[in-house]
Each structure stands twice: as C-alpha cells, then as structure tokens.
C-alpha cells in the first residue's frame, strides 16, 4: 500500500493550486448565478466549498476529514437547475454569464475530483479475494507530491477546449436544415424538442460508436501475443463448442468407464 505522506497535503503546492482553482471556479459561478438568483446563488457555492474544505481540515481532526463525493454532482445539478429556472436563453445568441458558468463549473469539478484522487482514492477499491487474504485491496490515493506545476495549467487548457466544444456542439444541435427552399425546417415531422433530443441521441450514439470502433482497432493493433492467442482459442471454442462438448463428454465417459472396470478387476 502507498506509504502515508509525512507532511500534510495542504502544505504541498500541487494541492494548493487545485484548491485555488476550485475556489475561483466557485466564486465565478456565484457571480454568474448572483445576477439571476440573488441570495440563492450562494447554495452551490457553499456545497462546493464544503467539498473543497475537507482538505483544509487539519490532520488532527481526522473525523471531520471525510470526502464529500456527491458534492460535485449536487453542485452541477443545482447550477443547471438555477440557470434553467431563470434562463431567458436567446435562440442564437451566446450569453456572457452562461459562457462564464460552464468554465467555472468545469474548473470546480476538475479541481474537486483531482483533490479526491489526491486525498482519498485514485483507484477504486478492489474487493476481489487475493491469495494473500480475502479482503482485497483498499482504495489508494495518488501521492500529492507528484503533482507538477504544469498540471493545473493543462487543466485550464482542457477546460477552454471543452467549453468551446460544448458551445459548438450545442450550436450543432440547434442547427436547422432547409433542404430545397426556404420555409419550414426539415425535422422528419417532429416538433422542435423531440427533434433536438433525437439529434442529441444520434450525435452521442454515433460519436460513441465511432470512438469505440477506433479504440477497438487500436487495441487489436497493439494487442499482446497472449491476448491474440486467447482470441484464437475463444473463437474456436465459440464456433465449435457443440461438437467439442459432445466429444469431450464422450471421452470423459469412456475414461470413467474404463477406470471402473479396472477397479472391479483389482
């Protein structure tokens, strides 16, 4: 298991970067919601701060130092709910507050999840029984001293790309197709909302299929010798399992019969 760190993670610069980024995201989110929701805008900020603040609890108060794993999900849902309740979204325009809310939320989510990985568990608990004992492996954290100074900068870059891609994807969903002549858009006889859902499902579905297919090709290209042998063995078994089963059972029956005969003779 990973050795416990001698120093408090809060004293390490990597953790501080993420704390700063996470709190900054929450402040921007608060400002974005403040305009529309007034005092209620503080709710997601408080929940998010509660998730981040567990890292600020001193090591001596270990009882209070528990991860709030559902804080990011709750912040995301409440933010989306508040923005939807108060939204006056223009069909074609991109509003500044909405544009600010998305990167702020991503900054908070990214920081919070990375802090979870640094403080509590980077990999899930493995409950499979081991030869050395029945309990499996407890969850292990990522050593905080391994966070480089470039990591938060990379995260900011990724956030910018994702916000841009999210906006582009939304515009793509809103895109109306006019095939022959100006008039009613072509929606296969559907209203606007079902049409958007259908386009979303198709976009996500086709995108997932393409990506999974590409990675499957990459996997077969980078496959190890044992994995390739396993595919060969498994394919042969799948295609001829009926015949193999009959033959194997006959051989086993024959062996048992000859053994019994031998036992009777002796």
């Amino acid at each position, binding site marked *: 298991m*990973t*050795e416990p760190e001698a120093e408090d993670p809060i004293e390490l610069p990597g953790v501080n970067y993420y704390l700063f980024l996470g709190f900054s995201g929450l402040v921007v989110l608060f400002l974005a919601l403040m305009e529309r929701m007034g005092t209620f805008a503080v709710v997601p900020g408080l929940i998010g701060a509660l998730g981040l603040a567990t890292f600020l609890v001193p090591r001596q108060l270990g009882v209070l130092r528990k991860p709030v794993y*559902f804080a*990011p*999900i709750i912040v*995301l*849902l409440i933010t*989306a*709910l508040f*923005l*939807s309740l108060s*939204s006056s979204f223009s069909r074609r325009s991109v509003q500044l507050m909405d544009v600010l*809310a*998305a990167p702020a*939320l*991503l900054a908070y989510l*990214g920081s919070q*999840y*990375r802090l*979870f*990985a640094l403080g509590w568990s*980077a*990999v*899930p608990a493995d409950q*499979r*029984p081991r*030869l050395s004992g029945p309990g499996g492996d407890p969850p292990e954290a*990522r*050593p905080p001293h*391994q966070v480089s100074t470039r*990591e938060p900068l990379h995260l900011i870059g990724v956030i910018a790309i*994702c*916000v841009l891609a*999210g906006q582009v994807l939304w515009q793509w*969903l*809103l895109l109306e197709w006019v095939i022959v002549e100006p008039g009613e858009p072509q929606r296969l006889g559907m209203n606007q909302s079902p049409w*958007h*859902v259908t386009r*979303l499902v198709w976009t*996500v579905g086709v995108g997932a299929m393409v*990506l999974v297919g590409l*990675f499957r090709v*990459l*996997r077969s290209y*980078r496959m*190890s010798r*044992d*994995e390739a*042998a*396993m595919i060969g*063995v*498994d394919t*042969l*078994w799948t295609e001829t399992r009926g015949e*193999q*089963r009959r033959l*194997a059972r006959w*051989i*086993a*029956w024959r062996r048992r019969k000859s053994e019994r005969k031998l036992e009777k003779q002796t």
Partner: protein
Amino acid sequence: MLTSRGWWLLLTALFLAALGAALPVARGGTAAILGLTVLVWVVFEWCRFLFALRWGVPELHIERELRDDRGPVVTLWSGRTFTVIVRISTTSRLSLPFALIDDRLPFGVKLVDGGTNGAGQVSRGKPVEISYRIRCRSSGPVRFEGVRLRFADPQGFFFHEAFLRRAVEYPALPPLVDAEANQRHTKHDNMLPPPGIHRLRRAGSGSELLDLRDYQPGDPPRMIAWKASARKDKLIVKELENDVPVRCTMLVDASQAVRLGPPGNNALARLIEIASSVAQAALGNRDHVGLITFDEESSAYMPPSRSKRHLVDLLRRLSEIGRLPVAASRPDAESLIPLAHALAQEVYPDLLDSRLNTWRWWLPILFPRPEYLRSLTLGDAVFPWWRRLSLTEWRQQAVRKRLAAVLTVVNGLPPGALALMHEDDLHLSIALQEFLSMHQVPYPVPMYDWRGKYLFASPEKVEVLAAALLTAVRRGRDNELFVLAADLFELTGRMEPLRRAVRVALGRHHRVVLICPWSPDIPLPDSEELEPASPMGDVMAEARRALIRRYHRAFQETRREFGRLAVPVVCAKHREPVQLILDRMEQLRVAGIRR
C-alpha cells in the same frame, strides 16, 4: 474501465444534456450547454486516457536487479537478505497515465524492509523505480512473476489494471553454515592424517608403513628397506599404507511423501538442510561429498568431489528439489479452482477479460454437465433441475471455462483441450495443479482415497533407492559413508530390496546411516512427551495421540529392521544428524589408525 465516480458524472451530464434538449431552447439551453460541456470533458479525458494506455502499455519494460552488499547477484541464499530493484521504463514518446505499481512478492520470501509498491507516471527517460529488501525463508527457486499496474486518470474517472508478466526465477541455495563450527575439535589420536585423508589398510603410496616383504623384480629401489635387508641377508622392500580421501554419498529422498506440507517447512526442507550442512562441513574438511536425489521414478547421481564448484553444483541441485511441488494423481478440482482463479486474476487479468474470454450465460441451462461428470449431492437427487437454475452453478461454469481458456493459452495446449478441461474434472484439476505449482502457489491435496488408503506412501521409491545405493556402491572405491536421508515410516513391511542393497554396501566395508525426517510437532520417540489421556469426547486429542503412537511404532520397526544390519537410524528433527554424520566420517578417517 469507468469508475463509479466517472459513471455518476457521465450519467448526470447525459441527463442534463437530454433534459436541456427536451425543454424549449429558452428554458433548457443553459442546462444543455452545461451537460454537453461536462460530457465533452469526460469524453476528452476518456480518449486521452485510453489512447495513452493502448499505445503505451505494450512499450513498457521491466528491469529487475537483485543485489547483496557486494553487488548484483544471480543466486540467492536462504536466510540472507537481498535488495530487489525494479525499474519500469518505456520507449514510447507518449506519457502513460498515472499508475500505482505493485511488484508481486514471490512465495517463500519475506519482505524485510521497504515496500513492494510505488506510484508515478512512467514516461520516456523517466523510469519509476521500486526498491525493497527480502529474505529467503527456504531453499528452492524464487519466482518473480512481474509487476501489477493500476492506471488512473488524474480525476479518478477511469481505471485500468494490467500485469506486466516478466517471470524470472532465481535459485535460492540452502543456507551457508559455519563449516568450521561443525568440524570436530576433540583430539582422538596423535597421528591424525591430514584433512580429507584416511588410511586404508591396503598397499599404496601413503606415508605409514604397512608391511615388509621380499623384493620382487620391478620394485622401485627407493622402497628397499636396507636395514631389514641387511639383517635378513636378502632384499626386503617396504609396503606403505594407502592414503585415500574420505567419501560420503548422501541419498536424499525427494519423493511425494516428503514434499507434503508447507513449502520450506516440510520434511524435504529438513532433509535438504541436513544434506547442505553435511556437504559444507565435509568439504570444509576437504572430504569428498556426493549426492543422489531420488523419487518414485528415477534418481540423479552426482559423484563425490571436493571442489568449490562441486559444492555450488550440489547446493544448486538441492535447491532445485527444494520446492518440488506435491502432485496428487487425482486432485480435487473444487478446492483448486478458487486458488487458481485468484492467481489468474492477479497475474493474468488481461486473459480473463470478458471481451476476449467470453462465456454464454445460457449454456448451463441448455447443456448442463451430466451426472457422471460431477459429484452428486442430495439436492441433485431431490431437485434434478436445480443445477440448471442455480446462480452458483452458472458462476462456477463461467469460472471453469475462463480458467480452462487461460490454461490452454499459458500452456500452449491444442484446441480441444479447452472443452476437455471444461467438461472433465480430472483434466482440469491436473492442469490446475501444474498451473499452481508453476507459480509456486501452495495448494491442498487429498491425502486419502475414498477407501481411506494413504496416497503418499510412495512404495516405488524403495526400489529406486535400492538401485541408487547399488549404483553408488558399484562406483565407490573404498570405505565410504552412505547417508540415506529418506522417509520410510510408511513402508516398514516393504523394505527388503533396500535391506539387500544395504547388505551389499556393508559387505564391501562401507558404512550406512539412515536419517528419517521427523515432524516438528510430534515428540521424539525417546522424549516421553506423550500427551496425557484426554477426557472422553475430545476426538481431536485422541486422534493426535493415535498419530503419535503410530509414528513412534513405525520408527521402532524401522530401527529394528535396520538395527539387525548395524545401521543406525536417526530422527531428523533437529541438527543432531549433521553431527552424527560428521562423527561417522571422523571414524572412517581414523579407522586405519585404530587397528
């Protein structure tokens, strides 16, 4: 691949995107944008993680180095401490995701210092290194399987486990003993020959006078005894004693009977420890030591020698037999499957992947295993259809098929082997036994058959031992010491071939000693430590008393049988047999003096 954290975020993002798309644009636009942005982020991280993983893992390399205080070593010694350094590097330009690294500690090795795990991001030119110290508990090959890697993205959304299999075996030789401490210091005679020599009362080229005789043509002039010739008035020549080295040949039992028990703590380990100590002490005295290892089928002979190279070869041979697995002819598949499955999950996780190693859930329902291929229970008789619907049966069948496929690939078996192992318990259990023994995992073996007959008496080894002893006698030159280190307690009525061979050895003026391994938790025959009679009902205590009595009776019978031949029988519980053998060698050395 996706962790629960990743699933929750992905599902929430999809929900928000779908909700936003389903609502009118003015109401749900913002929620949809947030959902889509988070979705894009998750997909982006997934692509990055998976691409780095697929591309980078085949490029990983492991370097393993074992060192002692003086530098790198290729051979280990039991009881000594070594440093293991594992370096994981990559030649790929692409950085791998963060990984938790765990080196799998071999069986029979104790972690002394440091940890077998590490963490880091492996990239080109920046290997991750783990260092720890181990101590070998017993002799035998030490097998390092490889390194377990658990990859995760920085957020903990994705997870992948891999095992870099780079199996490498190091021989762990028996412990180095203080050879000088085992040498006898008490002075028996004022005319002790030099180390490694004993005097044989036959004419030779030694330094002590044996006899005087008449001169014969061809005798060298320097052998003429001039004073005696002058007295007798004819030429008399001196005959000198023969100086020959002391030779000891150890016949070490490596049969199934002595392999029973935990590796490193069974009868074989005790015999090896004795043989190793005797060899080192005798070679320290410049005596010749040979070794014969035998089991139920064959024997291997190493002629006596006294070079350092011979000692290393002898210890290596002892190390090879040190971890020989016990193999039952009809192992129990039900007890081996959980062990083998746990091992396969650790070492072969890629081959157990359900995408490669498939299973159809409906097979046990449509084609259940027939009654003649499985052990029947009362439930089978009452509810014959129960097995078709039992979840346990489904799981067991899936595990059987997956393990059979792994065994087929690992052992390179022909295609039909998978189905044969899947259907027939005997084939599967024998393959599992070999699989576990290859990976040095201890496993249970049935000791009695259904009639209650003990399965590990190994009566065949008596013939093999007798043949090996006769071979050694045939190759022997003069008075030698033959040490039979064998478990013969279960064979008290079947030792006639061995007695004949011992008579031949004694007839040629050799000496024979029988060393029998003794279980550490059973009191010695002369110790009178038999536990008091237990109150009625304590079955286990009664069974133990019966076992001790049976053990003692077998020892007495063995001692009686060999006592008629003047062959001493010694229990190998402690280190006393070593001293006894060295005493016998000492007697051989001074035999020529005590006329």
